[in-house]
């Protein structure tokens, strides 16, 4: 099956500032992918590269098998909602639906109108007068009505109140179920993504840290606590992600495919948030120590 996103040593540089470095990533179809990382980590850069708003400085990226924005047809296969959901403030909701229909041959106007109706939006209201949540829903409607194979959303729920956030995700998941969409959505908060993502990509400091199916990642990562022990003395099949020590106790976050048999350790499961925090911590240390780039494990 063609990967929805295939990046090979992808880099983007602005003068001296490196927005993304050597990102190699292959995302399989049929998932809701969460792209997580702190602000400025390169999430928006990666997504803009994926939809053709940016050109790579080096490396390659392919989306649904072709270069992003290569042809109008390729543009039609990918739906995109940019950060802060830009709209045409002076144009009405109905104008936006026309916009979708006139600029996309595959646009399903009936579905879009039906959805606007369901949302209770006034078609004649100017987009500039909509609330943040309503604008987000409008933008999502436009993107989904295009009937894409892949939907890319850049921080779609940031700044939305909890109810608007819930409604947005409900609509998104319903559409994923109905149309068998693949989705890539980014956020700097793991909590936004926990319910909906089954594939995780972690970007910190413009580098890829981790990528894989959530289930597998949660199963292979553990928090070990026990008597004080040096991180370097851990067995080789247990990769230490993060370690913290007190005088007598060590808490070590490891990745291991095989079970932990050492009775000295208390083994705990980890949450998605713990996972992301650990890799973010490791990346911050790595920048300080300038270790060689970590190959993300898939």
């Amino acid at each position, binding site marked *: 099956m063609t990967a929805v996103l295939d990046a090979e040593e992808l880099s983007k540089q602005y003068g001296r500032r490196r927005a993304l470095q050597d990102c190699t990533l292959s995302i399989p179809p049929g*998932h809701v992918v969460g792209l997580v990382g702190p602000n400025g980590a390169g999430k928006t850069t990666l997504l803009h590269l994926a939809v053709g708003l940016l050109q790579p400085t080096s490396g390659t990226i392919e989306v649904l098998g072709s270069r992003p924005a290569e042809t109008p047809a390729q543009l039609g296969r990918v739906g995109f909602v940019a950060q802060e959901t830009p709209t045409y403030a002076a144009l009405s909701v109905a104008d936006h639906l026309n916009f979708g229909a006139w600029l996309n041959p595959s646009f399903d106007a009936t579905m879009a109108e039906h959805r606007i109706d369901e949302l209770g939006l006034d078609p004649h209201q100017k987009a500039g007068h909509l609330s943040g949540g309503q604008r987000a829903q409008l933008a999502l409607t436009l993107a989904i009505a295009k009937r894409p194979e892949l939907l890319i959303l850049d921080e779609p729920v940031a700044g939305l109140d909890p109810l608007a956030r819930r409604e947005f995700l409900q609509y998104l998941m319903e559409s994923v179920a109905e149309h068998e969409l693949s989705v890539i959505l980014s956020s700097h908060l793991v909590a936004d993504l926990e319910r909906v993502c089954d594939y995780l990509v972690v970007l910190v400091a413009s580098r890829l840290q981790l990528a894989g199916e959530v289930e597998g990642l949660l199963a292979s990562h553990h928090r070990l606590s026990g008597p004080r022990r040096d991180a370097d003395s851990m067995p080789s099949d247990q990769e230490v992600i993060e370690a913290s020590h007190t005088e007598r106790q060590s808490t070590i976050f490891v990745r291991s495919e095989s079970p932990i048999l050492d009775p000295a350790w208390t083994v705990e499961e980890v949450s998605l948030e713990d996972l992301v925090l650990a890799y973010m911590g490791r990346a911050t240390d790595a920048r300080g120590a300038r270790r060689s780039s970590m190959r993300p494990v898939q």
Partner: protein
Amino acid sequence: MNGGSVIEFHLDSRSGVSPYLQVVHQVRHALRLGLLREGDQLPTVKEVVARLAINPNTVLKAYKELEHAGLVAARPGIGTFVTRTLSDSTLAAHRPLRQQLQRWFGNARRAGLDDESIEALFRDCFRSTLDEGVA
């Protein structure tokens, strides 16, 4: 409007139990209490995710596990239906047992126990009864 499904799911994001297991448990729970009977249709994947805002694969996985356990069967294009219940003759005993429990709760509250103490007492008793049962 919802195609005849009888139950609704809810998600406790703080319980530490993974979402798909929660769905499985809730179906089993409903089966056990007789809220779901043979032939009833489970909510469609689309309905569940539209309400809970969770990944459709989660629901699919839960339904698949229930199918594996022989409790439900998927009919392509139509939906997922209950094939076997978990409630049995014990269902008849539920009503008087429920009344007894309610009376016990009333007594505990009148004795001055707060919710946490009631739950702790109940769990402790339940566990020790289990152990005795095993032994």
